[in-house]
């Protein structure tokens, strides 16, 4: 898989975000949509439908590419649990994730989203660095 598939996927993601804004006037932030659906009764219909659409995309991908190993992770169970908690608590406190801040917010040139995206990217890079190469400056 190479860069133009990444670019095409990005254009699809952007098109979905535009569709949601044009139709419902809503930001396509996945953590926000899912979180609000859990806690708020109003607007639950379209939010559930949006999440169902995401899962149906995964299902159709599995049907077309049999054995695509969708959802297979090389990371151990305890790490998945900690990662899930950090992603959940972090996106709830920060009010968004890669889609809400990284795509929709950046597209609106929102200062909050620019800062949030810079911070979560930096911590993503830092975490992988520490896991794979050790603490910066440490003698290995």
């Amino acid at each position: 898989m190479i860069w133009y598939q990444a670019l095409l996927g990005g254009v699809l993601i952007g098109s979905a975000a535009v569709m949601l804004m044009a139709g419902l006037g809503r930001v396509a932030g996945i953590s926000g949509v899912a979180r609000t659906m859990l806690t708020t009764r109003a607007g639950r219909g379209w939010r559930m439908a949006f999440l169902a659409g995401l899962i149906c995309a995964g299902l159709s991908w599995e049907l077309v590419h049999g054995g695509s190993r969708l959802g297979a992770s090389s990371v151990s169970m305890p790490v998945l649990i900690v990662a899930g908690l950090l992603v959940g608590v972090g996106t709830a406190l920060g009010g968004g994730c890669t889609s809400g801040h990284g795509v929709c917010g950046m597209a609106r040139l929102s200062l909050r989203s620019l800062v949030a995206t810079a911070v979560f990217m930096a911590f993503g890079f830092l975490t992988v660095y520490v896991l794979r190469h050790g603490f910066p400056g440490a003698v290995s």
Partner: protein
Amino acid sequence: MKPLIGFLAGLVFGLGLLVSGMTDPVRVLGFLDLAGAWDPSLAFVMLGAVATTALGYRLVLRRAHPLCDTDFHLPTAKGIDRRLLLGAALFGTGWGLAGYCPGPVIVSLAGLQGGLWVMFASMLAGWLLVDRLAPAS
């Protein structure tokens, strides 16, 4: 009509995540590994998504209201606070640990892998925890 638009947007969004490689945690971690065999291709996902959204929003937000609602619901929060910075830092750390952000987690539920479902449950727990203990003011 609202659920139909929601479903179609979710479907296209999910296909975008799948086509782009964002649902493959090995590629995501390869993208985040600047000091290793860095795989920059996922930067093109961001580029394509942000450019398309920026262009589309410019056209759409010129209208008086969306197709199925009386107003556009744009985020109103302004300013950089500790909550935003702490949240983004925690989220980035979790993303770097497993290579999954929320969209790919939900799309990948379709693969019926136990570990991924556990991560989904723990992400839900994180959302509910903040909602109970530290709701947005």
